[in-house]
C-alpha cells in the first residue's frame, strides 16, 4: 500500500503529479491510499510514495477538465475514483467518451454536482458592505457543499476587480485587496454579519417583484433549495409572501368583479364582436358563412344564451331571426320581457350543419366546440355583467357551467355560476318546433314562458 499526501482538499496539481507518477508505473488503484494534509504516512506502517516519475503520459484534455472539477467534490473517494479512471483510459482511451460506462458515469456525477455548487455560489453568495471610504470592503459568508471556494475565486475577482472583498466559509476564506488574492483559514458565520442598509431595499424589491397570482413554491424550491436560505437575507420574507398570496389574489379578483365597466362597455363589446369575426378556435368557421355574435345593450341586466345560429342566422349574421327566433320572440312578449333590453347570444357562434343535397341541416355542437367557444361567452359576460343569465338548452348549460346537466329536471330552477351570477335553465325554443301535436306544443310553450317569467321574477330578490 502506498500513501499519497495532498496539500489540501482541492489540491488538483498535487493529485495530478502523483497520479501521473503512479500511472507510469501502472500501480493499481487499490494499492494507493490518498490523504489530505500533514498526516504522516507510517501510521499503519505503510510507505509514503516518494517516487517521482515525470515520464509523460498522454490523456485527453477532456479528462483533465473533468478531473479538475471532480476533484473538488467532498466525497473522500474521489482521488481514488479518478485515479482508477485514469488507469482505465490509458488502456482504453475511448471509454472516457462512453457516457453509459459506469465508471465514467460516476465521475461525471461528481463533476456535475461540483459544477452546480460553483454555480450556486456565484448566484446565492451575498456581500455585505462594511467600513467607509478607504476602509470600505465587502464581506460574504458562504457554505459550499464541496471544496470550491478557491476554484471560484477567479470569477469573483474578474467581476468585482475594483472592490475589496472577503469570502468566508467553514472550509477556508479568500480575500481580494483590489490587486492580490490571498487565502485565510476557515471562518465563523458571525464574522460576516453586519448591518448593510441596502439589504432592506433589496428585500423591498424581492417582495415587490413577486406575483401572488402565480404562486409556485415547488418551482422555487427546485432551483433554490432551503439549505441556501439561511445565508440569503431575502428568503426570510418567503413564508409571509406565500401565506398572503391567495388573499392578495382574491382581493384583486374581487375588486375587478365589482368595478363597473363604465362608458367604454359599448365600445368594448363592439371590439370583441370585431375580434370574433376572425375566430379560429374550432373548425366550424370554415363551412359557416360568418360569426354570429351576441346582440343587445352592453349593460343589460339579463343575458340569454341559446345553442348556436341556424341556417337563417348564419346568412343574416344576427341571433334568433329564424323559426326558433320567432318562437323566442313570441315567448318574450308573453313573458313581458322587452327583447331590446336583454343581451341575447349563443353558446357557439358558428353554424354547425350537415349538407343534405342543397340543404344545410342543423347539427349539434360537440363538447370541444362548446369548450372552444366558451371563451367568447365568458368575455361577453365579463363585459355585460348581467344580474341574471338564462341558459336555453343543454348546450348553453354546458357553456356556462362546464358540466352536462339534463335540462328536463334542471329547468325552472336557479343555480349560481362560478363568478356568483345567478342562472336559470330552460329549454331551447327549437325544441318546441320539434313537437308534433299542437296540444303538446301549446303546453310546452306555456311552460317555457312560465320559466322565463319565473327567472325574471327572481331578479327582484337580487336587487
Amino acid at each position: 500500500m502506498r500513501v499519497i499526501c495532498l496539500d489540501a482538499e482541492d489540491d488538483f496539481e498535487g493529485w495530478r503529479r502523483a497520479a501521473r507518477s503512479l500511472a507510469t508505473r501502472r500501480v493499481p488503484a487499490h494499492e494507493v491510499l490518498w490523504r489530505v494534509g500533514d498526516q504522516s504516512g507510517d501510521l499503519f506502517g505503510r510507505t509514503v510514495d516518494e517516487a517521482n516519475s515525470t515520464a509523460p503520459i498522454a490523456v485527453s484534455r477532456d479528462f483533465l477538465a473533468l478531473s479538475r472539477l471532480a476533484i473538488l467534490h467532498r466525497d473522500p473517494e474521489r482521488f481514488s475514483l479518478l485515479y482508477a479512471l485514469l488507469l482505465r483510459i490509458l488502456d482504453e482511451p475511448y471509454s472516457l467518451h462512453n457516457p453509459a460506462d459506469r465508471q465514467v458515469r460516476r465521475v461525471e456525477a461528481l463533476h456535475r454536482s461540483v459544477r452546480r455548487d460553483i454555480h450556486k455560489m456565484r448566484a446565492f453568495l451575498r456581500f455585505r458592505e462594511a467600513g467607509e471610504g478607504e476602509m470600505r470592503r465587502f464581506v460574504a459568508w458562504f457554505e459550499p457543499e464541496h471544496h470550491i471556494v478557491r476554484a471560484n475565486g477567479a470569477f469573483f475577482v474578474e467581476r468585482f476587480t475594483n472592490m475589496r472583498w472577503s469570502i468566508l466559509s467553514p472550509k477556508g476564506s479568500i480575500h481580494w485587496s483590489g490587486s492580490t488574492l490571498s487565502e485565510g483559514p476557515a471562518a465563523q458565520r458571525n464574522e460576516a454579519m453586519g448591518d448593510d442598509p441596502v439589504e432592506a431595499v433589496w428585500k423591498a424589491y424581492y417582495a415587490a417583484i413577486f406575483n401572488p397570482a402565480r404562486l409556485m413554491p415547488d418551482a422555487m424550491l427546485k432551483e433554490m433549495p432551503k439549505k441556501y436560505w439561511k445565508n440569503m437575507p431575502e428568503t426570510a420574507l418567503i413564508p409571509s409572501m406565500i401565506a398572503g398570496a391567495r388573499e392578495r389574489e382574491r382581493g384583486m379578483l374581487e375588486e375587478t368583479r365589482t368595478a363597473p365597466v363604465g362608458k367604454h362597455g359599448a365600445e368594448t363589446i363592439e371590439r370583441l364582436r370585431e375580434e370574433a369575426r376572425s375566430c379560429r378556435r374550432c373548425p366550424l368557421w370554415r363551412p359557416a358563412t360568418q360569426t354570429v355574435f351576441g346582440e343587445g345593450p352592453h349593460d343589460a341586466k339579463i343575458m340569454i344564451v341559446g345553442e348556436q345560429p341556424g341556417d337563417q342566422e348564419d346568412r343574416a349574421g344576427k341571433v334568433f331571426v329564424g323559426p326558433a327566433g320567432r318562437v323566442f320572440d313570441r315567448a318574450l312578449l308573453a313573458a313581458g320581457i322587452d327583447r331590446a333590453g336583454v343581451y341575447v347570444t349563443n353558446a357557439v357562434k358558428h353554424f354547425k350543419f350537415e349538407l343534405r343535397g342543397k340543404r344545410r341541416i342543423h347539427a349539434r355542437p360537440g363538447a370541444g366546440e362548446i369548450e372552444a367557444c366558451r371563451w367568447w361567452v365568458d368575455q361577453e359576460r365579463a363585459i355585460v355583467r348581467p344580474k341574471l343569465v338564462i341558459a336555453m338548452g343543454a348546450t348553453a348549460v354546458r357553456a356556462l357551467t362546464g358540466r352536462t346537466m339534463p335540462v328536463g329536471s334542471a329547468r325552472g330552477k336557479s343555480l349560481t355560476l362560478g363568478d356568483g351570477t345567478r342562472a336559470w335553465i330552460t329549454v331551447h325554443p327549437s325544441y318546441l318546433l320539434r313537437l308534433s301535436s299542437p296540444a303538446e306544443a301549446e303546453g310546452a310553450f306555456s311552460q317555457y314562458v312560465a320559466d322565463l317569467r319565473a327567472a325574471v321574477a327572481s331578479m327582484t330578490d337580487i336587487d
Partner: protein
Amino acid sequence: MPHLSLAEKLSILADAAKYDASCASSGAKQRNSRDGKGIGSTSGNGICHAYAPDGRCISLLKVLLTNSCTFDCHYCINRSSSNVRRARFTVDEIVDLTLDFYRRNYIEGLFLSSGIINTPDYTMEQIVRVAKALREDHDFRGYIHLKTIPDAAADLVTQAGRYADRVSINVELPTTGGLRRLAPDKSEKRIEGAMAKMRSAIDEGRDARKRYRSAPNFAPAGQSTQMIIGADAATDREIVSRAAMLYDRFDLRRVYYSAFSPIPDASAVLPLKRPPLMREHRLYQSDWLIRFYQYSPQEVKAAADPDTGMLPLHIDPKLAWALRFRENFPVDVNHASRRMLLRIPGLGVKAVDSILAARRCHKLRLDDVARLTTSLKKILPFIIAVDWKPVALGDRENLLPHLVAKPNQLELFAS
C-alpha cells in the same frame, strides 16, 4: 406627490414591472472588469440570483423608470385610467440602485422599461440616459436589457442598442383583434416596424464587427419580445404560428409568454380568472421543441387538438405529438437519427447526445439507456434496444395511464 422613500419607489416600480416575463441575462459577449475602472462581468450564461415564490428567477433588477403612462392598455396595471400609485425614478437613483445591488451580488444587471410619458422620444431618451450613465460614467460591465419604445426616433434606438446587451419590444397580444381591443393606443404595424428596424441595426452591427474589430457592439444578445396569453381569443396554434413568424422575420432570440394574470385595479373588460399557467407552460415547451428539438412549427401545431386548436394541458406537447403520430414509434436507440431520438417522449437533449456518444462504443441495452435518462419507465413504450422491443403502441386510453399521473384530466378534452 408626497415624498417617497427609495424603497417605496422601488416597491411601486418593481411591482409594476413584474408582468414582464423576461429576466434572462444570457447571450452577452464575455467580458470582465480586470482591465477597467468599473465593475461587472458577463459569462454568456446568465445567473439567477434568487427565486421568488412564484417560481420565477431574479437575475436582473427589473424596474420601470416610471409607471405613469399616457397609454390606456386594458391589461396593463400602469394604464392611464388605473388608480395605481404612481412613482418616478431619477436617472441617478436607478444607476445607484443597480450598482449597489450589483456590488452585493444580488443581480446580474438591469432590465429597464418605462411607462410612456410626454412623448415616445422623451421616454426613450430617459431610458438611454440611465444606460449611458452606467456604461460611461461608471464603466459598468454587467448586463443591461432595455425596453425600447416603438415610436422613438431612430438615433435614440441606435444608442440604446449601443449600451444594451439586449433590447426588446413587446408584441403584447398574439392577434391583431386582441391588440385592437385591449391596447387601443398600440399598433401591430408600428411594433413590427420597430422590430424590423432593430433587426437590421443588429445585423449591421454584426457585419461591422466582422470587418472591424473596433466597431462598437450593438445589442450582442439580440432582441426578444413577449406576448400575453389568455387575454384574447388566440388558439395555441395561432400563437405558435405567430411566434414562428416573429422568430423568422425578426431573428428574435426569445419569445416570452406571459399568462395574463389578474392585476390590482384591473380593467373590467378582462377575463376574471386565475392566470392560465399550465397553458403558458405548454407553450414554452412547444417553443423548446422548435428551438432545441428540431420540430417545425407545423409539427407542433399538429400536436394540438384539431377541434379547438389548443395543446393538451394534461400531457406535454412532445408526448401529444408522439401519440398522434405513433407510426413513428418505437425508435431504435441504436440506429435512429438524432432527429428521431429527440422525438422520444421523456428524452431530453442531453440524454440524446449521451446515447449518440455511447452507441459509438457499443450496442445499447436497456440498462445502458437507464443510466443515461432520468425515467426509463416513461420512454419504454417508445424505444427499441438490443434486449427490448415493446409491443405496438396501444391506443391512447391504454397507454396514457402509464405515462401521465392524472389521467382524469382527460375528460376536459373529450369530445
